[in-house]
Every structure is written in C-alpha cells, then in structure tokens.
C-alpha cells in the first residue's frame, strides 16, 4: 500500500513536471537566452504594432518603449531586432529589421509589387516581437508578442490636410472672383510695362521691315512658364498676322514646336490671312542647350530681328541671348520664372517680367474677365500667405512673451506630414 501511495506521488510529481514543461512550451514568450557571465538585458515594453498611416498599404509600424538597459550599465542594449510571425505562438523566424540603440519604432514596409522582396500583403494578420540585443549575439531579451495587425491603404492622406484646405480655399477664391468678373465687376490690375511694350515693339518691327524673334526658352510643354508663354505667343502672332510682319519661333522642344505651330496658324486664320502663314516660321532646332543658343544667336546676327521676345524657362543661356540681342540692335522683352536668370534679363533687356508677372501676362493681354478673376484670387491668396507668415513669426518669436500659446497650436496645425 505504502509503495502504491509512493508510486502515485511519484506519478503526481512527474505529471506536474510534465505539465509545467508543457506550459512553458505553450507560452510564446521565448526565454531570455543567457550565456555564462552575461545577464540578459531588460526587454522592451509597451510594444504596439499598427498599420502605417497615410500610406499605400503594405506597411506596419512597430513602436515600443526602449529597454531600461538601452546603452547603459553592464547589460548594455546595443540595438533591437524586430521579428514577425503569422501566428501568436510563432515561430518568429522572420527578422524584418534591426535598428540601433535608442530607437523606439520601426516601419516594416514593402513595395506594392507582389513579387518584390519582403512583400507584405494587405489584410493579412501578423504578429510582432522585439528582441533587445547585446554585444553577444546569443544574449538577448524578447518582448511580449503583439498582434494581430494587418496593413491596408488609406484613401486620404491626413498629413496633407493643410494643403488640401489651401487648394479648396484657392479654388473657391478663383471661382468667386471669376463669377464677379463675369457679372461685370471692374477688377483693377496694375500696369505691366513689359506687356504694354509688346504692341509697340511689334509696330517697330513692322516699320523697320525686320522680323520678330520669339523664344520659348528651354522649358518643356508641361512647364507652367511655357504654358503662360503660349498665351503671349497667340497674342503676338495675332498682331504679327494683322501687321504682316515676319515671325521667327525657334523651338527647343518638339512638343512646344507642334503647339506653337498650331497657335501661330490659328492666329493667321483669325486675322483672315491663312495664306500668309509659313510653316517654317516655327521650327525645332535641338534639345542641346548651347547648340540651341548658338543657333538662336546665329539667327539674331543674320536676320537682325527688330524685336526679341523671351518668354519661358531660361537658364545659363539667358545672358548670351540678351547680349547678342543688344549687339543686333533689337528691342528686348523678357519674362521668366527662373529667379537666377532674372537679374541678367533686367540688366540686358529693355523690359522684364519678373516671376509671377509672366503668369499674369495672359490675363493682362486679353483683359478677359475669367483671367482677371483668377489673377485677383492669386492676389488674395498672397495676402493670406502674408498674414499667415506674420502670425508664424509672432508664434515662433513672441508667443511666450505675449501668452499666445493658441498661436503655437495654430502654427503646428500647418505641419505637413507626407
């Protein structure tokens, strides 16, 4: 009987030991690995994993509070290893990233292409664990597992809210002023000497019997400066057609050439002189910057145009063009949004449109209500930027002195997080 009882106790003890072992095995927290003489560091705490915000999906952000031994003491943590698994129990064989000490987050992201390396499929649950690493690769501490978390793409980037509101407000202002202009409201636009001189310059060319040279510069058709230049060319071409003056338009870009040909042809048709249009008036030269400049300078020296009009994007060649124009005795009107070239045009040309004056030229030339309305909207937007800049200066420099903490909060709202 005694032996039997002893046997039963042995069985009980044995069973308890087995159960304890099983419990340890089932518990997903891997034991801290030790080697003789090195104590594992404290693990990271407050581990969370969330879908990365404001992205196209396929990205999960893992955050944690660093280990208490982060870069300190005998149990120095030198970095963190982020592990991933498809199940809570593991196995955690997938190392998705290693970050240095002091780090508190890691973005596990991938390309949207399914075959790409490390691709993270959307709407698939993952579990994460972070190991605090030491100088010995065998000595580390694992955190608790967090999850499930899955990635998905967002339909609106909340970090761009200030930009979104700016676009809405600007569009609303444009619509408002365009409507006002349509209803016949007078909108004042200050005179632009460069644009007012265009008609006189064309008249001068006609009297002298010399051609007009129109240069788009080195932009491409999608540049805003080039689009503004198209509008100016259409006005110039219409006048040229009416006065029967020659027009020369050497182009740097083939697309600009095709658009410019259409513009000039339409201008001649509108002026009732379709037969006077010469297709070779608008031609492509080359897409090499200085080869183009050499060609245009050659045209200036040979053809001796009475008027040179430079409207668009210009780079280093701006002064070369303008100075050659001075040598050939032309009257020169220039407009560009390239800030670095504006001083050269100011120095060498008779009239210069600086920056946004080029964009305003289209509204100024036609005096169409629609265009003037958008110009007004631009002015009000500029005023708004000015007010915001002043508020920003106050917020950064004087909010403490003036007790304007609300201003600091207002300023922080404008942070754009892409």
């Amino acid at each position, binding site marked *: 009987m005694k032996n039997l009882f002893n046997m039963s106790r042995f069985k009980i003890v044995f069973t308890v030991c087995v159960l304890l072992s099983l419990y340890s095995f089932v518990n997903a927290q891997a034991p801290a690995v030790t080697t003789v003489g090195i104590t594992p560091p404290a693990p990271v705490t407050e581990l969370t994993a969330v879908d990365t915000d404001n992205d196209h999906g396929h990205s999960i952000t893992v955050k944690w509070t660093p280990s208490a031994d982060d870069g300190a003491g005998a149990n120095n943590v030198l970095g963190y290893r982020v592990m991933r698994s498809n199940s809570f129990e593991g196995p955690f064989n997938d190392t998705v990233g290693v970050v240095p000490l002091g780090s508190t987050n890691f973005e596990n992201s991938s390309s949207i292409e399914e075959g790409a390396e490390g691709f993270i499929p959307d709407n698939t649950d993952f579990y994460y664990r972070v190991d605090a690493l030491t100088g010995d690769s065998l000595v580390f501490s694992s955190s608790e597992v967090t999850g499930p978390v899955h990635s998905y793409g967002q339909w609106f980037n909340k970090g761009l809210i200030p930009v979104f509101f700016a676009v809405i407000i600007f569009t609303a202002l444009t619509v408002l002023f365009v409507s006002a202009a349509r209803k016949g409201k007078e909108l004042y636009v200050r005179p632009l000497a460069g644009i007012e001189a265009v008609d006189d310059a064309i008249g001068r060319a006609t009297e002298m019997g010399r051609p007009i040279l129109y240069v788009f510069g080195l932009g491409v058709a999608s540049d805003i400066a080039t689009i503004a230049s198209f509008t100016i060319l259409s006005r110039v071409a219409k006048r040229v057609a009416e006065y029967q003056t020659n027009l020369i338009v050497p182009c740097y870009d083939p697309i600009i050439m095709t658009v410019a040909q259409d513009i000039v042809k339409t201008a001649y048709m509108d002026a009732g002189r379709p037969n006077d249009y010469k297709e070779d008036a608008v031609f492509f030269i080359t897409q*090499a910057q200085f080869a183009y400049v050499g060609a245009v300078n050659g045209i200036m020296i040979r053809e001796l145009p009475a008027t040179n009009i430079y409207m668009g994007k210009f780079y280093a060649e701006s002064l070369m063009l303008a100075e050659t124009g001075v040598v050939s005795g032309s009257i020169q009107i220039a407009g560009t949004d390239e800030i670095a070239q504006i001083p050269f045009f100011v120095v060498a040309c008779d009239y210069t449109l600086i920056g946004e004056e080029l964009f305003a030229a289209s509204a100024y030339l036609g005096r169409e209500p629609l265009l003037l309305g958008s110009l007004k909207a631009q002015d009000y937007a500029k005023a708004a930027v000015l007010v915001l800049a002043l508020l920003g200066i106050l917020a950064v420099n004087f909010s403490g002195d003036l007790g304007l903490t609300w201003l600091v909060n207002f300023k922080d709202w404008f942070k754009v997080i892409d």
Partner: protein
Amino acid sequence: MNWFERFMKLDRRWIYLFLITVCLLAYYSDFTVPTIREKETGAIYNFIDSLPAGEVIFVAIDYDPSSQAELHPMTYAIIEHAFRKNLKVVFTALSQNGPGMADQAIHDIADSMRVEQTYNGVSYPAREIANGVDYCFLGYKPYYALVITAMGQDFRTPFPADYYGTPLDSLPLMKKLHNYDDISIVVEVSSGNISDAWISYGQGKFGFPLAMGLTGVMTAQYYPFLQSGQVMGIMGGLLGAAQYEDMADNPGLAKDGMRVQLPAHLVIILFILIGNIGHFASRKNRKNVQS
C-alpha cells in the same frame, strides 16, 4: 568728347581681350587663393566624413558637359572623398548629355584610387575600385521627375539594368539596395532645375538627407531650402568645390580654377567701377553744360 565718354563707348572686344589676357596670366602664374570654409559646404563634408566604411551614398551627376568646368571639381572631390573612406557609391546622370561625361569621370576617379595618398594626416592605401562592388552607375532615363519618384519605390523600376546593361540584381552592391531607405545621403550636382525635382519629388516625399552642388549663379536661389532644412548643405560653384577640397586636404581642379576666377572677378569689378565713374562724370558734365 572727353576721355570718360570715349571710355564709356569702348568696343566690347577690348574688354574681352583684357579679360582673357588676365585669365591667361593668372592661369600660368603660381599662387594659391586661400579658402575660407563656409558652414554650407562644411555640413556636407562633415556628414560624409562621419559615415562608417561600407555605407552607401547616392551621387546624381545631373549636368551637361557645358557646366563641367564648374561642377566637375566638386564631383571629383566628393567621389574621391567617398572612395577613400571606403563608402559605396550609386550614381545616376539624369541630364540628357551627361551620362558619357559621368562615365568618364567615374573611371578617372577610380583610376586615381590606385595611388596611395595622405589626406589630413591619414594615409589611404591604394585600392582597386570595382564596378558592381564599390559603385554602380545607373545611367540616364528621361523625365527626371518620374525617375526620382520611381527610385523611391525601387531603383529597379526605372533602372532594371545599369548603364552597361548589367541587370541590377546580379550586382553584389545592388543586391542589398532597394530605394532611398538604404542610402545615407543623396548628393545632387546639377546646373538646372533637376535640383527642384530632387527637393519636391525626392526629399519632400522620401525624407532622405539631400546635399546639393550647384553652379554659382543658382546658389542664391536655394538658400531658403537650406534654411528650412530641406537641403542639408550646398556647395556653390567653384568656390564651394575649392572649400570642399580644402576640407578634404585634396587640392585639385577647384583650387586651380580659383587662381583664374579671382582675377577674373576683380577685372569685372574694375570695369563696373570704371563704368560707374564714367557714368557719374558724364552726368556731371551734362549738368554743367546745361547750366
């Protein structure tokens, strides 16, 4: 007509002759222009100098041969500095006429690494620079804005193969590199508005450290980006390149170029002063005549 007015009507060819004479004399003279180190260039030098061996930098050689006189010195200075520090370099050339010139420059610099050199008291042994191991030249693709954006996803999207036609996946260096996240810094050397695209589509979207090497005339335009932190450093023209060479203790093309640039600037200043003196003298003369 007094001699001031005669001088004001001087044929421009005399000015050109005077300028070229001064430049030639300066070129064949032997003197060094001392360099004052500026914070903007120092930021780039210090960043690259602090990178440990094996880190990867991205150098965009985005200029045409027309700007090589001003921008080649800084390209050479940076790449030599990087190779000496055992950094890996990925190159592109997003300017249409630039790839051939960039390829030539890379080979020149790689050849110069075969000689042991000492810079700032540190001796750098000679070494072989191997394509695909120490550097990768991605080459040129049109529409730079699209290329810059696409590289943010994966370099292989716009460049499945390098400039020489080798698939990127077969290059040891590129096996570990996928996009800007794997790069320590992007150094963009350009003479046009590709710089704007790097700021808007590159640094703005992907947040990597961006340094710029620009022609002198463009430098002033990018100070707002420096102040806002979008650009971490600027090398402006030949002066910026000379400053970098000075910091790296590696005098080269820029130091030689400054020897010519300084007298040329002084000549232009002289003409400006003469022009203004003549202008005021003639104005005074006209007033005297009228009264």
